[in-house]
């Protein structure tokens, strides 16, 4: 309802004022009428006018306005809180309250201290008690684990990996732990927010996020373009990477252990809410991650962890059981230590034993990462240490050999090398002493030549001794020479023609001489065969010498006819001067009527 007035009130609209003008001006209204109208108007609109004046004065008066608001401010705040959650209100009031508190602490610290005293005392006490309790608990746990078999295993693992024992315990007691959370801008792959669990050493989040989106992109493009949610999980040794994405963002969680599937639902929920809250910020993102700092409140609850069941404190065990378990553990420990000591001792003995082996030099012997590392040098011909290891009953993979090859100058190794390179025949024995290689026995001239040729080139051979090495051809030659020189070709008295029965002996002599010539050429020597004619002492003295010469000539001519080279023979008559037998008997005299052989062996002249 609008009040009607002659003086347009300040809040009246101009058109209403115009509408009234034609009414008032042409009619001459009497003053009484005017007054009555005024009266009526007053009667009708007075209450409203007063009300409006009241409202107007309230609005103009700061003090009264404050008074009005003060009466509803509490209800208003309550309503707002119920209406759209506490976030917006907290956001609006937060900075002011923070500023106020800061100011207050700066200006009147005592007031705040007094006010907080009743709550701070118990809070501090509670906090200290809580810290002490958790310290005690972890101390208890550590103690317990250090005495249990598992604890010992974990200690071993800590030793092996170089990680602190506490971390190993945590790693095994945890069912899972979310160690890092990334909020990634999907289009650019840039990290918008990154949270890490306490005491987690995180890598550079910018690069990790970039690479993660590259891998996601790669899997998406390269493997299966149809399924958007293809890459939900990337498994790595020790931890998993869980990935969830929405139109604008990716949430990735680095999880150690095995998180339950409902963690993924929580990830999805957080992602949906984040997407909703920051939808404009995502679209306007131009490299400034600042607006996403607020997402921390949403992401932080995802950094959760859960201990393995059974790791929780159970009811107190009976001490008897504990003692029994401790005894078993201690006994086990003692047995284990004995085992370890024995094993170490055995290994050390093995390493020392290796040093005794020719061609193996051990320079160091340590245990690294649970395996024995044996370093040094080994001649390729020395025994294989891995085979020795197996022979001694060790497990081959407990040791690693780092042996560089070298030439050992030990006599036994040089001898091995010489045997390999020279391949001595069965009749030859090689030996080594102080760098001198000696050959003993009989060998072919070819092998002897090879020995002389090769021995100086063998590493470790400084001298060669072949004085006790015989040439097999020379021996054969000697044997033939002896055979030929034992032949006696007998003649009848006074004649230079062989006795009829001697043809077979001549044939055998021819055979031997043929062999002699062949062997001489193989042994590379020159032979000269003397045919010596003899006579007995009967008959004329003067005839003896010519007859003996005739006999030698006769044999030569027979041999020449059989094909031998005459130049190798020298016929000679000695008459009775070199009798073969005493002539007391007829048989002695008969044998003196003969031709015998003498073989001269000379080294071949250089011209041959």
């Amino acid at each position, binding site marked *: 309802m609008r009040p009607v007035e002659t003086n347009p009130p300040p809040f009246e609209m101009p058109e209403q004022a115009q509408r009234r003008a034609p009414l008032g001006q042409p009619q001459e209204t009497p003053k009484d009428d005017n007054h009555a109208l005024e009266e009526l108007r007053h009667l009708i609109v007075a209450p409203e006018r007063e009300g409006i004046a009241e409202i107007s004065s309230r609005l103009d008066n700061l003090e009264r306005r404050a008074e009005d608001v003060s009466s509803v401010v509490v209800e208003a705040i309550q309503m707002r809180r119920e209406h759209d959650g506490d976030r917006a209100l907290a956001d609006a009031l937060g900075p002011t309250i923070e500023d106020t508190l800061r100011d207050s602490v700066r200006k009147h610290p005592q007031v705040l201290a007094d006010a907080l005293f009743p709550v701070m005392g118990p809070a501090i006490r509670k906090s200290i008690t809580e810290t002490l309790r958790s310290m005690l608990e972890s101390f208890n746990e550590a103690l317990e684990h250090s005495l249990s078999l598992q604890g010992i295993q974990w200690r071993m693992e800590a030793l092996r990996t170089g990680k602190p024992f506490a971390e190993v315990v945590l790693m095994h007691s945890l069912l899972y732990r979310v160690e890092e959370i990334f909020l990634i801008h999907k289009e*650019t792959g840039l990290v918008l927010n990154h949270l890490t669990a306490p005491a987690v050493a995180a890598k550079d989040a910018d690069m990790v996020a970039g690479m993660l989106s*590259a891998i996601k992109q790669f899997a998406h*493009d390269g493997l299966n373009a149809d399924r958007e949610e293809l890459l939900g999980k990337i498994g790595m040794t020790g931890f998993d990477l869980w990935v969830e994405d929405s139109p604008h963002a990716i949430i990735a969680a680095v999880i150690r252990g095995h998180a339950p599937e409902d963690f993924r639902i929580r990830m999805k929920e957080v992602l949906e809410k984040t997407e909703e809250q920051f939808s404009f910020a995502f679209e306007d993102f131009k*490299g400034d991650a600042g607006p996403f700092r607020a997402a921390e409140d949403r992401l932080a609850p995802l950094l959760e962890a859960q201990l393995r069941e059974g790791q929780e404190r159970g009811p107190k065990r009976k001490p008897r059981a504990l003692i029994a378990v401790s005894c078993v553990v201690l006994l086990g420990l003692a047995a284990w230590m004995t085992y370890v000591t024995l094993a170490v001792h055995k290994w050390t003995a093995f390493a020392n034993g290796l040093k005794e082996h020719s061609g193996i030099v051990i320079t160091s012997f340590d245990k690294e990462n649970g395996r024995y590392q044996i370093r040094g040098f080994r001649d390729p011909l020395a025994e294989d240490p891995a085979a020795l290891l197996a022979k001694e009953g060790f497990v081959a993979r407990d040791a690693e050999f780092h042996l560089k090859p070298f030439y050992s100058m030990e006599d036994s190794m040089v001898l091995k090398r010489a045997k390999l390179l020279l391949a001595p025949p069965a009749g030859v024995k090689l030996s080594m002493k102080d760098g001198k290689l000696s050959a003993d026995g009989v060998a072919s001239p070819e092998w002897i030549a090879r020995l002389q040729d090769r021995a100086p080139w063998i590493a470790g051979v400084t001298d060669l001794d072949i004085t006790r090495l015989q040439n097999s051809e020379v021996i054969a030659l000697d044997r033939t020479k002896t055979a030929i020189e034992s032949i006696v070709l007998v003649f009848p008295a006074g004649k230079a023609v062989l006795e009829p029965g001697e043809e077979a002996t001549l044939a055998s002599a021819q055979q031997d001489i043929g062999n002699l010539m062949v062997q001489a050429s193989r042994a590379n020597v020159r032979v000269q065969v003397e045919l010596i004619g003899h006579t007995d002492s009967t008959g004329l003295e003067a005839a003896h010498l010519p007859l003996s010469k005739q006999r030698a000539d006769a044999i030569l001519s027979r041999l020449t006819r059989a094909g031998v080279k005459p130049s190798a023979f020298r016929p000679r008559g000695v008459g009775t001067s070199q009798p073969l037998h005493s002539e007391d008997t007829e048989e002695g005299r008969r044998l003196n009527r003969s031709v015998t052989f003498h073989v001269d062996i000379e080294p071949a002249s250089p011209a041959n």
Partner: protein
Amino acid sequence: MLTFKMCMLGSFSVGKTSLVRRFVTSIFSEKYQTSIGVKVDKKIVRVQDQDVTLVLWDIYGEDAFQKLQMSYLRGMSGYFMVADGTRHQTVDVALALEQKVTEAMGRIPFVFLLNKCDLVDQWEIEPETEKNAAAHGLGALRTSAKTGEGVDEAFLRLALAMLPK
């Protein structure tokens, strides 16, 4: 701090990876590049009194066997187009690549890098070609992974162009 994604593009073996190896922070091994075609590194540069993080996607060079994965370029704010100054055809590949990128993603700031400028006596690029290259994007720079010449300037020039105006 502002963070931007940038890419390194160019023909096979023009020295992209060695160009950045000495100048960026790396945590990933280079084998990623051959297996998934990209490796992500990081470089912080100071432009106009503020530190700017460049997350650098070093993309495996395009050659006859491997085509450029365009999806790796999504969301980049700038890029280096690298050519080998001692091999003329790498410039042609770079120009063709640039056209492809512009067609797919619109105009994005980039610097044309003519790499291996320490090999002066093997330089194959005609002054005319170099002038042509300089007319593209934010211009051309001669760079050398060996001496480091031009590398910092290239990062600065690109970062400056990426800052919001």
